[in-house]
């Protein structure tokens, strides 16, 4: 095998060509050279500017504004004066039992939906990574829920888990229950129904990430492991899992963030009810801001959610970074 030195692909001018040019400039004056240098510095920023303006206007400014609002008894009308109340909105949140229930429900949803999405997503990805007839069709079918509207599937699952819905019908038929479970009228049964939707809709996304990662698993290593007598499970844990570890970290972090941000399905399937039993942080925040027009309290909840999600992400990244697979 011949080693080929890679060709230089940089567009940076080579020194011998540039030198005479610089020499000419130095004779005729320094100003054009300075302008050229300034232009070189300005170009990247000029291209960055539109994106940055959008990012600043649509992400950074609202975030700063929400943070500011969380310290006020915010009056929503344009031009109205709002009273500064310090940490009062945060104190209200810490003493509000519904806030803590919403926090626990968001955490429970995350705990109930993230592991199944990872395990099932990886399982499906491995099945669909193997050469088999109709592979593309199955990939499409598993990905279909991801691109389906949350509104449509939330209503669909509401019907499935209704008192007289398909789930009760099937469970009764299988003699698993008496068929009279009122799924959406109790806190935990409703959370099961909402989580079932989250898992069903999310598997396709993690499958797609894992599929991409599985394409990068070295066949040489797999073959070497096979030659060494490693079984299917051993090959999975020592070769495959090792190779897709960065993708697993990415999927986990993103799913945890997404789990804490659950909103549409809860709003549509239970509305946070009955009696606020299934409120999650975002539905609770939405209710405070847009039903009661208490934007100060709503913003404080949003800030607290941001801190929790940020802290969780940092912890996860640190845990994963310090942990290597053996």
């Amino acid at each position, binding site marked *: 095998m011949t080693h080929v030195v890679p060709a230089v692909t940089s*567009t940076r*001018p080579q020194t011998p060509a540039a030198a005479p040019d610089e020499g000419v400039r130095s004779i005729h004056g320094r100003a054009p050279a300075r302008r*050229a240098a300034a*232009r*070189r510095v*300005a*170009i990247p920023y*000029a*291209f960055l*500017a*539109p994106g940055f*303006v*959008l990012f600043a*206007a649509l992400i950074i400014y609202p975030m700063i504004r929400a943070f500011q609002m969380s310290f006020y*008894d915010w*009056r*929503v*009308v*344009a*031009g*109205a004066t709002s009273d500064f109340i310090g940490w009062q909105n945060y104190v209200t949140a810490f003493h509000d039992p519904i806030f803590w229930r919403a926090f626990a429900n968001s955490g429970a949803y995350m705990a109930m939906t993230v592991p199944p999405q990872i395990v099932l997503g990886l399982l499906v990805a491995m099945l669909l990574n193997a050469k088999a007839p109709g592979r593309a069709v199955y990939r499409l079918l598993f990905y279909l829920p991801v691109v389906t509207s949350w509104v449509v599937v939330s209503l669909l699952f*509401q019907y499935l*888990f*209704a*008192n*007289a*819905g398909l789930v009760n019908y099937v469970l009764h038929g299988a003699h698993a229950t008496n068929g009279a479970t*009122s*799924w*959406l*009228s109790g806190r935990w049964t409703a959370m099961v129904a909402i989580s079932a939707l989250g898992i069903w809709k999310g598997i396709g996304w993690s499958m797609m990430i894992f599929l991409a990662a599985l394409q990068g698993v070295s066949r040489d290593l797999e073959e070497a492991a096979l030659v060494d007598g490693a079984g299917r499970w051993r090959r999975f844990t020592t070769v495959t899992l090792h190779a897709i570890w960065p993708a697993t970290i990415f999927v986990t972090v993103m799913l945890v963030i997404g789990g804490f941000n659950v909103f549409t399905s809860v709003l549509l*399937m*239970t*509305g946070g*009810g*009955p*009696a*606020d039993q299934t409120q999650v942080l975002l539905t609770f925040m939405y209710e405070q801001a*847009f*039903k*009661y*027009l*208490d934007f100060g309290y709503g913003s404080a909840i949003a800030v607290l959610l941001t801190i929790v999600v940020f802290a969780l992400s940092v912890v996860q990244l640190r845990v994963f970074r310090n942990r290597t697979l053996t």
Partner: protein
Amino acid sequence: MKRTTARWAIPVATALFAALALSACSSSPAKSSASGPVTLTFWGTYGNGGNKAQTDVLSQTIIPAFEKAHPNIKVNYVDVPYDSLLQKLTTSAAGGQLPDLVRSDIIWVPKFANLGVFAQLDGKMPNFNTLAQATYPGTLSTNKWQGHYYGLPLDTNTRVLITNQSALASAGLSTPPATFADLQTDATALAAKKIPVFADSGLQGWNILPWIWSGGGQITNADLTQATGYLNSAQSVAAVQMLVNLYKEGEIPNLLIGNKGAVSTQDGLPKGNYANILDGPWMKAIWAGQYQSFQPVYSPMPAGPGGSISVVGGEDIVMTASSKHQDAAEQFIAFTQSSVYQLSMAKTGQMSVVSSLDAQEAAASPELAPYIKQLQTARSRPAVPDEPQIDTALQDDLVPAFEGKVTVQAALDKAAKDIDPLLTATK
């Protein structure tokens, strides 16, 4: 090559930047001409749920009649789904982009009046007192906040008992329950057929107050400053206890506690799943489309020790404080109280708020007669800015009583305690 890139790169990037900046600024509203015809923007929810009958009457009859009488005023009606109007009003108030007129749910008026979004009408609108006195007192009171009026009633409604006669007949019953005692007797008869005697979809003020009022109880004192001693009185407890007893026997379905997986009243009554519900005059049009053979029977709210008392619903017409055409807007508000507006809308199920039009309304729309009668004693929910929170408190505090986790007395004590500060809150 490199220098060529540099030459076009900066202008292109600058142009992109400028385009973005300019597009962000281009949405500022054009100022209206002072001399030309005035255009009023009017937001409403007439078309909610695809109700074309009401938007058709508005655009084909009512607005042309107003514009003919006021050649210098044009009305641009914008239909907004009911579920998004509160959010749209809120964000528009924050952005200073409000319309001139709003058909507002009666429970939002005190909140937006308190925020300074809706304009005070009494003392400003020339003929306000005359127009106000012509309306039902219960509907007018929904416009009042801190001694002033911020709107006029536009349309009203209330809830009456609607019965599936076939469901009653299957249990050997012939007439809808007229009293609390009848309801309990009917429940026993219907239980044998596994048909709940009554169904409703929540425990908020709209749902529970007719039972408390008819039971002789109250939600607050007359000044709307205290719930303790009223909401948790013996009469209120007895009325709610009756419902709890029926619920525990399975004679009221768990739709009542807010279970979204239960069969809705809209479907359950015509299908015979439920024998009775409480609902408004719009149901007739809904069933006419979906359940054409269903013949609903309308009767008054079952009477308890306090009589037969239902709850007032409906909308008010309000002008925004930021409207640049307040004189024209006031003229349109006055027009909404005319017989043209009120009777045209009554034909579509939106009941008139002008009491002198009762006879004409009943003659033109006989199906509204039970509602017109019920309105004579119907009461409005507390007209305070935090009314939505009061609804939540009622729902959240009463559910545990229905689930058997606390006594009705304890649930109403807690609700009263939670509601007290909401009555006096002014933020």
